[in-house]
Each structure stands twice: as C-alpha cells, then as structure tokens.
C-alpha cells in the first residue's frame, strides 16, 4: 500500500514563532486519516504546506509522491480542499461558485452528482454568498470538493459550522468516499466524528506529532475503565498498572493499563463477580491524556 501524504520532520516559523517543529504525518492510500490537535497546534499550517500555499522551512513533504511547492498546480488537479474558515465572494451565488471551482478543475463531475449533493446538504444555490451563514459557506466548499473526482480530500475542520443533521450527511458522504477508494485527511476538533470515521489517527501538539496509529493501537497503549459489582471486597493494592481505585461496599471502579488487565480480572473472579464492564478509552480520553501533562514530557525525544 502506498502513501498519499508523507511528511517527515516538517518545520515552519512565522517570524520568531515556530508553528511546526518537526511534524510527521503519513496518510495511506484509501484511508480516512484523522488529524487532531488543539487550537494553534499547527493543523492548518500543515495543510497549507501540503497544498503548496506555504513553503516549509525544513523537513520533507510529498503529496501523491511529488513536491507540493514545485508541482502544486498539476497536483491540485488530483486533490480537493475545504478550508477551515470558508470565505466566499459576496456577490457570487453558491451555485456559481460550485460551478466555477468544478470548471477550474476541468473535471466532468456532471450535473447529476452536483444536484444530488446540493439536495443532500439542503443548500439554496441561488443565494448570494453574502447572505450565507458560516455553515452554508462550508456546505458550498464541501459540495465543490465532494463533487470532484479528486483522489485525495483535504478537509480542514469541515463540520465546525454544520448542524447535527448535516454532520450526519457529511459522515455518510465520507464513508462513501472511502468505499470509492479515495483518501481523506480530516482535521477535526469533533472527536466523536474522527472516532466514527477514521481508520488511523495522528495527534499533534505544539507543532509536533505525539501519537499516530489506528485507534486500536492507540488504545492498546492506554487504560481501560473497569467497573464491577463483587460479592466480597477485594484488594488491588500493590498491583502494577492499576490506577484511581474507588471501592465502596461491593462496587469497584478503576483504570487499568492494558498489560495489567489479565491479572486484575483474575483477582476479581476470586471475589465473585456479579456484573462487570470493561470499556476501552474513548478518543476523547486519549486526547485529553495527551494534553494533560506539560508539552516537554511527551514531545521531546
């Protein structure tokens, strides 16, 4: 399997402020890859470098195997982009902008697909862009991107202005893109969305990659939440990999490292289990854990 995005050791400064400080990002062909990080972590800067709108100060970057700064124009025929903050020409209508962007790409996405997307997203294409809300401006860019026959979609927080109904439509569409074999880089704050859609995840912080892998891999590295109703009290003291134990009467709650799960379960069964739930960490918990400590602890290598 080849990689559609390969960025290693990416660096970029704005004045004295480092925006990217050795960022790595690999997106494989055909996958939906979630790109997560708090505000100001460098998600948009990375995407603008991938588009060739900014030039990296250091590191290597390849988009579909080529250099986006040098070969940007021809590469752009094969990708589609939805900016995080969509601004449109106020005097043009949504329909005009969708058509213009399609013609610039020169692809024959066809009126049927365009009409279908406009209906699915419930957009009024005859309205001037100055009358659109943020969500509607985002829909215009999304429809233009989804109507194209691009191999790779770069979506920068594409749902930040959409209502829950439209967010569901968006998820269906991204699923369909994956089925068609297209690759998607999805930068997002909405962790539930990334969790539902993404094959793999990259989490960045302060311009560096702190975690990358499938959700299963990331979960393996972290703790599950165990809660149980027991016949008799049990002591988990002294057991490595067990944290935050609360015990009241017969009910127990604790966080357990993956490696310690076997031993914990063995001890619990000796105490007579009446009910047991073992929940893997949500992406949100993974995410929050990455940002709980000071950056130096996790970032420096």
């Amino acid at each position, binding site marked *: 399997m080849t990689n559609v995005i390969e960025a290693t050791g990416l660096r970029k400064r704005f004045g004295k402020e480092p925006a990217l400080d050795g960022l790595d990002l690999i997106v494989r062909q055909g996958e939906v890859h979630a790109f997560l990080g708090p505000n100001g972590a460098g998600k*948009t800067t990375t995407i*603008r470098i991938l*588009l060739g*709108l*900014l*030039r990296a100060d250091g590191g290597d970057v390849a988009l579909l195997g080529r250099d986006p700064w040098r070969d*940007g*124009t*021809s590469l*752009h*025929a094969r*990708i*589609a*982009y939805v*900016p995080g903050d*969509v*601004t*449109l*020409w*106020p*005097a*043009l*209508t949504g*329909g*005009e*902008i*969708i*058509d*213009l*962007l399609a*013609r*610039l*790409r*020169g692809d024959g996405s066809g009126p049927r697909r365009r009409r279908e997307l406009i209906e699915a997203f419930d957009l009024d*294409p*005859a*309205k*001037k*862009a*100055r*009358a659109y809300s943020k969500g509607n401006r985002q829909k215009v*860019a999304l429809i*233009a991107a989804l109507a194209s026959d691009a191999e790779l979609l*770069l979506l920068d927080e594409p749902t930040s202005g959409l209502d829950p109904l439209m967010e569901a439509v968006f998820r269906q569409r991204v699923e369909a893109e994956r089925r068609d074999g297209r690759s998607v880089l999805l930068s997002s704050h909405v962790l539930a969305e990334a969790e539902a859609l993404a094959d793999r995840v990259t989490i960045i912080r302060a311009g560096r990659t702190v975690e990358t892998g499938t959700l299963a891999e990331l979960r393996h590295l972290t703790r599950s939440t165990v809660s149980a109703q027991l016949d008799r009290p049990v002591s988990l003291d002294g057991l490595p990999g067990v944290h935050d134990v609360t015990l009241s009467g017969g009910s127990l709650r604790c966080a357990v490292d993956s490696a310690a799960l076997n031993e914990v379960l063995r001890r619990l069964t000796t105490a007579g289990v009446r009910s047991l739930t073992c929940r893997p960490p949500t992406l949100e918990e993974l995410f929050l854990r990455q940002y709980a400590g000071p950056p130096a602890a996790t970032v420096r290598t």
Partner: protein
Amino acid sequence: MRWSLAGTGTLARFALRRDRVMLPAWIYLVLIGVSETAYVFSRLYRTPSSRAGLAASGAGNPALLFLYGRLGGTSVGALTAWRYGVWAALFAVLMTIFIVVRHTRADEEAGRRELIGSARVGRQAPLAAAAVVAVTANLALTALLTLALVVIGLPAAGSAAFALAIGSCGLAFTGISAVAAQLAAGARGARGLAIGLLGLSFLLRAIGDSAGAAGPAWLTWALPLGWTELLRPFGGPRWWVLALPLGLCGLGLWAAFALSGRRDLGAGLLPGRPGRASASALLRGPLALAWRLEWPGLTGWAAGFLSIFAVCGAAAPGIGSLFGTSGALRGEFARLGGQSAVVNAYLAALMLLAGLVAAGYGVSAVLRLSAEETGPGADLILAGPVGRVRWALGHLLVAALGVASLLAVAGIAAGLGYGLRAGGTGPETVRLLGAALAQLPAALVIAAVAAAAFGLLPDAGTAAGWTALGFVTAVSLLGPSLRLPRWAQDASPFAFTPRLPGGAVSGFALAWLLALAAGLAAAGLAAFRGRDLRP
C-alpha cells in the same frame, strides 16, 4: 410602537471612538476645500470688476452652471459658494451616508449588532446612536466651517448661512440614510440606495440650473442638494429654506424609527434579489472570475468618467473668457497643460487628470489581489489546478483593460462635450481619444508599481501602492506651479507622456514606459510565486 433607547449614549460614544480617524478626515477634507477656494478668490479677484468678469462668464456657461450651480452675487463669498457649495454639500452627504450605514446596517450584517443587542441595550438604541453621531459630525462641520470663513474675512452672517446650508444637507441625508438602512437587506444595498438618491439630487439640480430661464428651473427645488444654492447664503440669506432639510431630517428619522420598530433583525423591507443557481458559461477561469468581480465597480467608474469629462469638455470653449481677467489662473493651466494656447492647455490638463484618476482605478483594481489573498476565495482557487501566476495575471489584465477603457471613455466624452459646443464632434472625439490614450502607459506604470509591491512587500503592498499614486499625483499637479527641478518632476511617469492636444509625441518615451510597466509587473509576479500565501 415602543421606543426603547437604553444605552444610546454608550453606543454613540463607542461609535465616535470607532470613527475617530475617519470623521476628522472627512470634515478636514470639506473644510480645506472650501476655505482654500475662499482664500484663493479673495487673493486672485481683489477688485469688484474682476469678480464681475468671472461671474459674467460663469453665469453664461451652461456647463459651469451644470457643474457648480447658479451664482448668488459677485462678492468673494458668493463666488466661493458657487464654486464649492454644491460639492462641499455632496461630501458632507457622503460622510453622513457612510456614518449612518456603518453603524446600523453594516453592524447588523456583520453580526456585531446581535452581540450588542444581547446586552442591556434598547431596540432602537443603535439607530439612535448612529443618528446622534451623524448629527454631531454635521454640526461640528457647520461650526468649524463658519469659523474658518470668518477668519478668512467673509461676512459672519453669510458664512454662517453657507455653513448651515452644507451642514443641513448632511442632516437631511441623516434621515434619508436611516430610512435606506431599514429598507435595504444589506449594507451595500443601503449605501447604494442613499448614494443613488444623492446622484439623482445632483442631476436634478444640475439640469434645473443649466436649463436657462425657459427650462425646468424648479427642478433645483426638488431635492436637498439644490437647497444649498436656494438659501443664497451671501446674497441676502433666505433663512426659511433651512426648514426644508431640517424637516426632511425629522421626517426621515421618524420613518426610520417606525420601520425599525416593526422589522426583524437582519431583514429588510426590500427583499435581496436571488442570483443564478448555476454559473454562466463564461465563468470558466481566473480571468473570467477577475472580470466578474471587477466589472460592477468599473461600470460605476466609467459612468463617473463619462459625466465629468463630458461636462468638463463642454466647458472648454468658454475657458478663455473665464481666465480673461486672471493671468495667474491662465499661467497655472498653461504650465499644467504644457502650452500657451489656452483651450488646448485646458484640454491637455484635463487629459493629465484623467490619466491620474485612471491610474487610481488601476491601483485599486491591482490591490484587489491583496484583498482576495487574505479575504475570499484565493485559497479555494489556488488549491485547484490554477498556478499563482495565472491567477494574479487574470487580475492584472482586468486592471489594465479597465484603465484603458476609462481613459477611452474620458477622451470620447471630453471630445463629444467639446465638439458639441465648438463644432466638429467627429474630429474632436478622435483627437481627444488619442490624447487620453497617450496617458495609458504612465497610468499602467503606476498600477504596475502596485503589482510589484503586492509581490515584494506582501504586508505593506496596499500602503505602498497608494503612496506611489499619492506621490505621483502631487508631483504631477503641483510640480509645474512649484517649479520643482526637472529631475524631481521626472519622478512621475506622466512627465514622459505627451500633453495632447497640441504637444509633441515621443513614441520612444511611450514604449519605454510600457516596458517599465511590464517589467514591474513581472517582478511582482515572480516575487509572488516564491513567497508564502498570507492567511
């Protein structure tokens, strides 16, 4: 109707703070224009007979009547009111429209109004605050203008009446713009509505003034701009005329408050027009997009060029008699126009002016690149398979085409205007079209400076472009009369364009200017290609 005005004072102070640069600048513009005119008239036309000569030629020339209005006497004050009264009122009105719409409809459109509305602020308070600011600005203008004219030495009563004529026109439009802000569905629409009424007001007054005794002179009475003349500030003021603008101001504000009390936030009474649901077949690439974005503005510029240069061209045949008594003015034009034959000098100076204003349009069109880069859509376009040079070149070509067509309009309009009064419409039009287009290379050089600045100084490009234009305008217009040394005057590209009609043409200089413009634009494009796109 519930009148809740809580918070008006706070909002008005806040609005004044937001306008702390713009408002003084507008007021200063009107003040300096009027007082300079008054000062020049009081120095150049000292004797009653020289003023009578000027008045006689002004009263008999329909083009001047159209442009400035009727004369109310032969005193320095009356001449000042004639030369600058209508135009000063026009500027005061523009200031008023911008204030009122900025603090009502524009805030509403940008969503700031909701933020304010959720605080302890009455429903009518933003509109009331905008009205307070507009009234304050116009009263300040009236007071300062009275003071300035009295200091120059004009009679106190006349000065006050003249300043009131201008300020009250602004007040009348405070009411009108407040209503426009309720009717239209957006800030642009509101401004367009109010400015449209201002244009109509100027036109009706101009027709009424220039029509002669047999014509529809009553048209001057129809709308506010004409009332400034009818007050006759320096010819026995008719104070009661002030009741018209003040009444209109009150009526307009009353209607605006009534309308704003019953409409929803964000809604207008005139619905916004829907556009096309799909793009026309022509909207295919960056060049077509640049044209689509630029042509509405360009049409407005062209309409302005057409009317102003037609009128100025029509004024040319009488220009000799206007200068008859003033050697100073005649010399001024001869230096600007580069020759001594007075009509040709006047026309050549006019074409120089057309070149400078067209260059101003060129700079604004080129700098749209900068606005597009940080504002709407540039990243959407450039993330598509469109190279940066192709995108930027589209805007540059549209700018160059716009400059060329504006100059063509100026030449044709001046030729028609002059030809209709002096005879020989056809040859005059061709002659002046050539004279106007001869300024094109120099205008393109200035636009190209803005293009180079856009590429090379991304953060200071806009400032650099306008500074270059301001510098060249100052050198071209003031250089000859200040007798600046040759090398200083040569800093303006217009020093190398021929002063036509009448002057000599150097094809070599024009080709050199065109090459310079192309070189500057190419340098800007090359730099833009190699730099980061601004967010």
